[in-house]
Structure formats: structure tokens, C-alpha cells
């Protein structure tokens, strides 16, 4: 005969398990809840890019910025103006534009369960749609201790747009401070 308190504790236990399972069974290949909790396997700050077409088309001239670093509305603007892509011509056949745009919108920061995506999103104004990751308030704040000598006037760096130049694990989606090596300056010391 089940007592009220044992039924209650069964209900509570089931609720807890259900709640944990939705976090545990995530569709995005991020190391799962249990891997993170018990194995110390950390998810990178933003979902890494695995799409080969995106890497080829959006990574042949510059760092392949992860779609999780800007909201969908920003990417829509970028992808609708490829003939004048920050002063360069990045035109593509229409099917390629569509495929890449679909990938970007699906993995944009708006609904990405990754730390950097969430921080960037909450730093933006209501419908802010910056075209540059480096113009998001979160990014600006994170880079506000850099000197010109380290970036703009550094012949080995030149611009904060060159993520991979200092963030040694950027292509895996990780931008941790401990991984930074600024050419000519070394590791980041607070």
C-alpha cells in the first residue's frame, strides 16, 4: 500500500528525472549533461562549425565566424548583401546562398544553448542586428583592456576581427582566456 509521502516522493523523483533528461538529451552534439557534470568534459563557448560548405565559402578569406556569435537577423542582412561584403565581393550561386543561410539561421545565437551565444544575445538591444561580432556590447566589453599596440598597431594582428590570431582554439568554438596568445605579447595576464 503506497503512502501519500511515498507517492509524493515518486512524483518528485520523476519530475527531477524528466527535467534532467531534457538537458541530458540535447540534439546539438554538445557534450551531454552527464559528460559535463561527471567527466569534466566542457562544451566550448560557442557551437563549432562542422558544415563543410560554410567552412569553404565563409572561411577562405577570413576566420570562419561561428553562426552562434550573432542573431539570425544579423546573418540575414549579411547574406543578402554578398556583392558588397564589407567592401569585398563574396557572391555565390543562389542555391549556395540559400543552403548557407539556412545553416546560419538554424545555428544562430538566438536559440543556441552555448555560453557565448547567450551572453552576446543578452548584451544586444531589443532588435539590434549588428553586422559585426566585434560591434556587440559583449564583445566590446570583453576586449576593452586591449591596447592599440596589441591589436591595431601590431603587424602580426591588425584587427579584432582576426579571432584565430590570438584565440588559439577559436576554430573549436573556444575563446577561453587561458588559450590566448597575442603575437609579440604572449599569454593574457589579468
Amino acid at each position: 500500500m503506497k503512502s501519500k509521502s511515498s507517492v509524493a516522493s515518486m512524483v518528485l523523483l520523476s519530475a527531477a528525472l524528466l527535467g534532467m533528461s531534457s538537458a541530458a538529451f540535447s540534439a546539438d552534439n554538445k557534450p551531454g549533461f552527464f559528460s559535463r557534470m561527471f567527466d569534466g568534459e566542457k562544451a566550448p563557448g560557442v557551437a563549432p562549425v562542422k558544415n563543410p560548405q560554410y567552412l569553404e565559402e565563409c572561411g577562405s578569406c577570413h576566420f570562419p565566424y561561428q553562426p552562434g556569435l550573432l542573431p539570425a537577423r544579423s546573418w540575414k542582412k549579411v547574406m543578402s548583401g554578398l556583392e558588397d561584403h564589407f567592401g569585398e565581393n563574396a557572391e555565390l550561386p543562389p542555391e549556395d546562398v540559400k543552403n548557407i543561410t539556412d545553416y546560419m539561421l538554424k545555428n544562430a545565437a538566438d536559440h543556441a544553448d552555448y555560453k557565448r551565444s547567450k551572453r552576446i544575445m543578452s548584451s544586444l538591444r531589443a532588435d539590434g542586428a549588428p553586422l559585426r561580432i566585434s560591434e556587440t556590447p559583449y564583445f566590446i566589453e570583453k576586449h576593452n583592456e586591449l591596447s592599440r599596440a596589441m591589436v591595431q598597431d601590431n603587424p602580426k594582428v591588425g584587427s579584432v576581427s582576426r579571432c584565430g590570431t590570438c584565440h588559439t582554439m577559436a576554430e573549436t568554438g573556444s575563446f577561453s582566456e587561458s588559450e590566448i596568445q597575442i603575437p609579440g605579447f604572449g599569454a593574457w595576464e589579468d
Partner: protein
Amino acid sequence: MNRKLIGVTALLLSIPFYAQADAVSDLEAEYQAQGGTNSSATAGEALWNKEFIDAKKGDKRSCTKCHTADLKKPGKHARTGKAIEPMAPTVNPKRLTEVKQIKKWFVRNCKWTLGRECTAQEKGDFLAYLKNL
């Protein structure tokens, strides 16, 4: 047994060269059909090194700005600094093997450098120049 092995290996090793020969000859035929006359490697080289002034921004542009004039060496994107693999097929066998890739870069780079799409003649000349490097 040995001769067969050598023969098969030779055949397999030549695949990259077939790929390039295919893509380039397909495109050359296409450009001829579009009105290009006999393509000239000399004209292609001259166009490669020519300097154009951008109508809107006034800056100087040429193929050499990113690819350099020595196509066996790697180039560098003039703005982002990203390394560009050498253009010369003898040094970089992946070059000129895919029609889609070649067409894509012709659209982007002619428009950016010359301010317009390259004509069939110009594209044919470029290929004539590049394919033997």
C-alpha cells in the same frame, strides 16, 4: 603482376591531372562558344598584372594584390591577412580542377578587381596563362 601494378598506379596518380585537364578544357570550350577567340597566355599574364582603379573608392586593385605576381608562392588576402594557397597548378594540384570553383572566383574577383565581370575572352586568356604555371 609488377607491370599491372605500375600501370594502375600511374593511372591513379594521373587523376589530378585529368581533373584539371577536364575542368580547364570544358571552360575553354565554353568561353570560345561565348565569343572568345584563341586564348593567349601572354594576354592573360598582362591582365593579371594590370592595375585597375576602383570607381567608387579610388583604390588600386589588381590580381597581384592578393595572389602576388609569383604564382608559385602563397598569397595573402589584402584585407584579412588570410594566407592564400599558390595559384600555380604545378605547385598546388587542387587549382583549376573544379568548374564551379573557377566560375565562382571569376565572378567575385573580376567584379572586385575590374569593377565588372570578365569577358569570355579575358577568362579564356586567364586560363591559358594559369594552366601551365
